[in-house]
């Protein structure tokens, strides 16, 4: 394992820093003492690369830092390094992430506990830097754990938690941390950086055990198989993803103990839902304008709440359905699209509807497509969505899917 050169004070106290979400992820890499990091520039992911490069050149982080010739190689390199026992970090954005797709499919299949950062970016064409969630969501069926964060502190904390969860032998699946381009990757905010000792206590060393690719442990990895093997192999990953829920809960509880920051329910955050009539549901930084709008509407006596989903994979369907069942109407804000999907909505709306189907209480669900390509989700946008929800709650028929904030 690489040894980080301790330049920053080793005091067992956390310290404050004004850093961006990308920088927070880079700091987490340092704290996690990552061994191999690969990079290939694409905005907004490239900001992480730059911060990591700086940490390496400053002597603060001792790791193999490899700039690959493409995203595909970038992910392949860390996949192999992880198989050989290295703690790895990687990431990309938009079509860069898609270019790595073949590597992204084999990573969970081989039970590689890679931690990656997706700086969410719209898929081409047209070329656009702004956030859409379709890039990260593209791997939702493959065995990647997917978590959305909405601020730099959460990005740092979640990256540490992601290593602990991914590298737990009960799981051994990769984890991608999705960070909204611009709003998170490029904006700096106050972050508490924990001391190395706390992280050491929280994060055990990566131990690949008998799956380690090493001359002393001769194994064959990824052979060719026929129809008589594959279902069993898939079942293995299915069970691991199921176990991941337990491991995530354990990790957040342990995190709260050591770091003193308690995220409550790890899977989704509830905001002003206690007495809410209707709630909006979304992922990522759109939480900020939504929370502002909710406070304003509450001042007008409108009981609107918000549920921010963090973990999209694993998806806690039963728990979420039970929560959403408390309200009279639910609105899903998708910062993504799924053309031709049921009710031509987005990925999240489709998943939430599916989660609700077996539930006892199924409130009306309205789908909203909003904030595509990095367009701001504004307070009036949120108010408009909330008004529609309140009308639906009052029994008024509303369109099942609405594009909000589009010029028309």
């Amino acid at each position, binding site marked *: 394992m690489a040894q980080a050169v301790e330049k920053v004070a080793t005091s067992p106290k956390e310290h404050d820093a004004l850093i961006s979400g990308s920088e927070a992820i880079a700091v987490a890499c340092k704290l996690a003492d990552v061994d191999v990091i690969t990079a290939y520039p694409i905005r907004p992911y490239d900001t992480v690369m730059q911060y990591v490069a700086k940490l390496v050149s400053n002597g603060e982080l001792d790791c193999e830092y490899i700039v690959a010739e493409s995203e595909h190689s970038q992910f392949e390199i860390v996949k192999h390094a992880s198989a050989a026992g290295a703690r790895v970090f990687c990431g990309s954005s938009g079509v860069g992430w898609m270019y790595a797709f073949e590597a992204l499919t084999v990573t969970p299949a081989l039970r590689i506990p890679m931690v990656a950062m997706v700086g969410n970016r719209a898929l081409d064409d047209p070329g656009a830097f702004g956030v859409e969630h379709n890039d990260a969501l593209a791997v939702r069926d493959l065995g990647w754990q997917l978590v959305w964060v909405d601020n730099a502190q959460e990005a740092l904390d979640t990256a540490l938690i992601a290593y602990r969860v991914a590298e737990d032998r009960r799981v*051994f699946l990769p984890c991608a941390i999705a960070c909204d381009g611009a709003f998170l990757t490029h904006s700096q905010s106050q972050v508490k950086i924990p001391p190395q000792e706390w992280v050491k206590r929280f994060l055990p060393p990566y131990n690949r055990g008998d799956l380690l690719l090493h001359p002393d442990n001769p194994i064959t990895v990824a052979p060719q198989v026929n129809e008589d093997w594959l279902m069993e192999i898939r079942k293995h990953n299915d069970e691991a993803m199921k176990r991941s829920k337990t491991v995530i809960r354990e990790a957040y509880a342990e995190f709260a103990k050591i770091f003193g920051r308690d995220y409550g329910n790890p899977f989704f955050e509830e905001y002003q839902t206690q007495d809410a009539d209707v709630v909006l549901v979304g992922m990522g930084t759109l939480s900020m304008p939504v929370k502002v709008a909710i406070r304003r509407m509450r001042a007008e006596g409108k009981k609107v709440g918000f549920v921010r989903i963090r973990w999209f994979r694993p998806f806690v369907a039963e728990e979420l359905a039970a929560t959403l069942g408390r309200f009279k109407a639910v609105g899903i804000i998708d910062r993504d699209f799924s053309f031709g999907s049921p009710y031509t909505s987005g990925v999240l709306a489709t998943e939430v509807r599916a989660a609700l189907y077996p539930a006892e209480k199924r409130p009306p669900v309205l789908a909203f497509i909003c904030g595509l390509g990095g367009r701001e989700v504004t307070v009036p946008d949120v108010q408009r969505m909330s008004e529609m929800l309140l009308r639906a709650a009052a029994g008024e028929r509303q369109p099942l899917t609405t594009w909000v904030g589009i010029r028309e």
Partner: protein
Amino acid sequence: MGRLFAVEIVYRGIFQKNLAKNISRGIALAARHAGKMGISFGRYGDSPERNGIPAKSFAVIGTDEETLQEGMAKYEPKEVDVSIAVDDTLFKGVESWAWYGLQPINRLLRPGGTLIVTSMNGPEALIPMAHRKETPYRLAILKGTPSFSGLWVYKDDHTDVRVLGAIAKVLPDLFTIDDVEKAILEEWSAPLKVTSARKAHERITTRVVSPSEGNLEKTFEFELPKWYEMREGVSIPSIARGAAMTDPVTQQTGGYRPVRNPTFKKYTTRTMRPVVNFDTCVKCTLCWLQCPDSCFDVTPDALYDANMEACCGCGVCEAVCPVENCVTMVNETAFTDNASQWEMWKKDKPAYAAWLQEKIQHKPERSHGFRYRGQYEEQLPPMMEIAGGAGPEDESDKEG
């Protein structure tokens, strides 16, 4: 519910893949002329592009559409009416790319079904090679060497239609020779091929193989693990390292025999095997070094013993051996077991010398069609003569 027929064609990749396809297509086409409907397919998991590997094609025919559906969306039928081996060395068993373990050539044959083989050998040579079957079945021998017909530049030797003619004889419920004729004219518009098919139909005879006949060897099998018995991450522990060998006479130990995969031996890929003259070997190591499958066990006396559980019969060792006639490839039908040649030699050198001489002196057809330039051209006329289509008529040339 109508009747479902199934025919399998067991062949060697890559050389016979077009031949096998032609036969299974021909079956489906002839069946259509007999008022039935059918499908023709290759076993998907096979790897027919690999040199010599046993692979399968199938034709499944139903008397009506609903019956046919019973045989569709399957990799292979559970049971076949007719099995066809277009290379007689396949009688030793079939280990495909598609499964684990060794399947007897007659495994899928239903009780009373017919195994058709193209061979220059008689039943006395063929039956002991095939594994015993609990129920009797019929054997039909279609005279001929393993055909490459339909491959690349290899000329047509009519093996495909001769097989169709033979099927019409042994399974007339499926189609008649007249249906075969219509199918041939439709698919190939070749009247000469019709003559060959009719000749085969006339001449083919069958002989019952009883459960007391055949190879007693227990085929190696493999039990597939439950999902939770497997390791995660598609990882498989390696097989163990090898160990020293023991001299059967002096009990001296030494040398090295690698441990080999017990469930994936692949020796049924072999149509010929190396026979080594240990008396003339100069211990140059070339065979050991060059064998693509690491088949050579290093003996305590520093000789190189090609392990017949592992050898796929590629012939590289013969090609690289610097001593004349020290390694000779011999057709697989000349052998009944996979015993160690070195042990044989150690135990009784004069007896081994006689055995060796007997195996190599005739240099029987070692492998078909591709061993030297012009070999196929030499072999084609006699094949055509046997087929009777293009060659001179010869009624005394009896099949089977």
